[in-house]
Structures are given as structure tokens and as C-alpha cells.
């Protein structure tokens, strides 16, 4: 806890949050939103296809979208780490933060499983199996929870 407190009260945090420049907090926050749009946007399209939306698109042709998923995830892991450091002490005691992290981990994991089951296999049926569909739907629900949790965290900052 002392570590998180010292991170949150560090000179870096003071500079990052206190700077009048738009290139510190506002830009990292915006990058976090850009990464979300790429990561969740690409996941959304893949899972909708598994759920038979735009069912004429050959499943395997959507494989390049996983590159977008990982690029978006990398942007958000980095920007998220910076944002975490500056609020570390508040976040480690914030249950909503853990809900967000757990939802993201589970949503990504389901995305990888859906890829292996329904998208990767050569000559895989264009009609996904029931289990893949359930996983796609669950992943979409988990992304939604992650977004809502992330938004709510902004309302749970300590005044200090």
C-alpha cells in the first residue's frame, strides 16, 4: 500500500496531472479511448460475425482484425499503466477497478478461444458452433461491463 501511495504522490504524478499542457493527462486519456475504439470495435465485429451477422463474410477473412485487437490492447495497456500509476492508491482499493480488469481478461481470453474454435481452422464451417456463439456473446457482454466499469471509475476518485 505504501508503494501505491508513493506512486500516487510522486513527482511524476504531480507533473502529469498538474501540468497545464494538453500533452500529459488529456492526451494519455484520449489515447486510452482511441485504443478502446480499435480493440473493442474489432472485437465487436468479429463476435457479431460469429453470431451470424453479415453471415456471408468468410470467417477466416476476418483474421487480420486480431492484429487490430492486439494493437488496440497494447495502446491501452501502456496508457492504462500510466493512468494507474497516477491513481494507484485509489485504484487498489476500488472494487470497480478489479471488475474492469477481470472483465477485460475474460473478454480477451474468450476472444482467443473463439479464434481457435471458429476462425482459425482451415475449412471451418461458416456457421459457428453453438459453444463458439455463446462465447462470442459472453465476450461482447464482458466488453460492455469493462466499458461501464471504466467510465464509473472516473466518479470514484478521492478528492485528495
Amino acid at each position, binding site marked *: 500500500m505504501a508503494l501505491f501511495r508513493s506512486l500516487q504522490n510522486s513527482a511524476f504524478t504531480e507533473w502529469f496531472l498538474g501540468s497545464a499542457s494538453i500533452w500529459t493527462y488529456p492526451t494519455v486519456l484520449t489515447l486510452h*479511448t482511441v485504443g478502446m475504439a480499435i480493440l473493442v*470495435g474489432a472485437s465487436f465485429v468479429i463476435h457479431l460475425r460469429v453470431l451470424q451477422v453479415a453471415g*456471408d463474410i468468410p470467417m477466416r477473412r476476418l483474421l487480420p482484425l486480431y492484429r487490430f485487437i492486439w494493437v488496440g490492447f497494447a495502446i491501452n495497456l501502456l496508457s492504462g499503466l500510466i493512468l494507474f500509476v497516477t491513481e494507484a492508491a485509489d485504484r487498489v482499493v476500488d472494487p470497480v477497478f478489479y471488475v474492469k480488469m477481470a472483465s477485460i481478461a475474460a473478454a480477451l481470453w474468450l476472444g482467443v478461444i473463439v479464434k481457435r474454435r471458429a476462425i482459425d481452422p482451415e475449412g471451418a464451417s461458416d456457421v459457428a458452433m453453438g459453444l463458439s456463439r455463446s462465447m462470442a456473446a459472453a465476450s461482447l457482454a464482458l466488453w460492455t461491463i469493462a466499458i*461501464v466499469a471504466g*467510465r464509473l471509475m472516473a466518479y470514484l476518485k478521492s478528492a485528495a
Partner: protein
Amino acid sequence: MLEFAAWVESTQTSKTLFGTSWLWPACESLHFIGLCMLIGGAGLLDLRLIGMFRGVPIRHVKAMMPWAIGGFLLNAGTGALFLIMQPHLYLSSGVWWSKVAFIMIAAANALFFETRLAPSALSMDADADTPRMLKVVGACSLVSWFAVLYCGRMLPYLGTGN
């Protein structure tokens, strides 16, 4: 414009909505979800127009568009609620007007595609490369939607005198 904002804020509707404490964060969450639907769905079509995802006919990608439009409508609705609740924040902000301008550019671009380019684009082969005009329209759409996102997210920080 600010008098108009003050008038809107003086109405009972605006006061009641803004006084409902959960409404603002709920709208924010929906606004973020709608943004992912819009950029995911429209982005796929834009990338196909630019020339990625060969092997998928443009008409098949277009079947995803109702979800992108759904995301846009969700954001137009929640955006209208923000505007009714706190009009002075937006009407006095150059960044907000830039956001509106980029939405107009994206809409005009989509309309141009639908009316002038779609008939030939929809009949193109799955593997066909796209003509330069379609690449320009796809890139214009991507750039303007991300510009909309940028203006929206930076709205509280840009042009505030800092």
C-alpha cells in the same frame, strides 16, 4: 448562443434530467459503447474500401452497417441528452463545434458513397482492388470518425485557456 443555452438550462426538462444523478454517467457509458459499435462497423467497411480484407465482397461487409448506424444513433441520442442537460458546455466550445463539423464531413462522405459509388462498389468481385475514389472515401471516413472521437474526448481540456 449563450442566451439560448441559459434558456435551455432554465427549462424544467433540463433541470429534471440534470438532477437525475445516474443519468449523466449512464449516458457516458452508452456513448462509449456506441462509439465502439460505430468505429468497429464503419471501420471494417472503410478498410475494405481502402483495399484491405480482399476476398470479402464489399456488399457482404455492408451487412454489418446497421450495427454501425445503431451505434451512431445511440451516440446521437445520448449526445442530445448531454446538450439538453449542460448546453453552455458545448455551445460555447469551439472544440464541440469542430466535432459537429467532423460529423457533418463523415455524413456527407457516407452520403456521397451511398448515392454515387455504392451501386458499382456493391457489384465488385470479392478479390477486386478498389479504385482510387473508393480508397479516398474510406480514408476520409476513418479520419473523420477518429477526429470526432478526438474532439469529444479532448473537449474538457482543449481551448479552455490552458
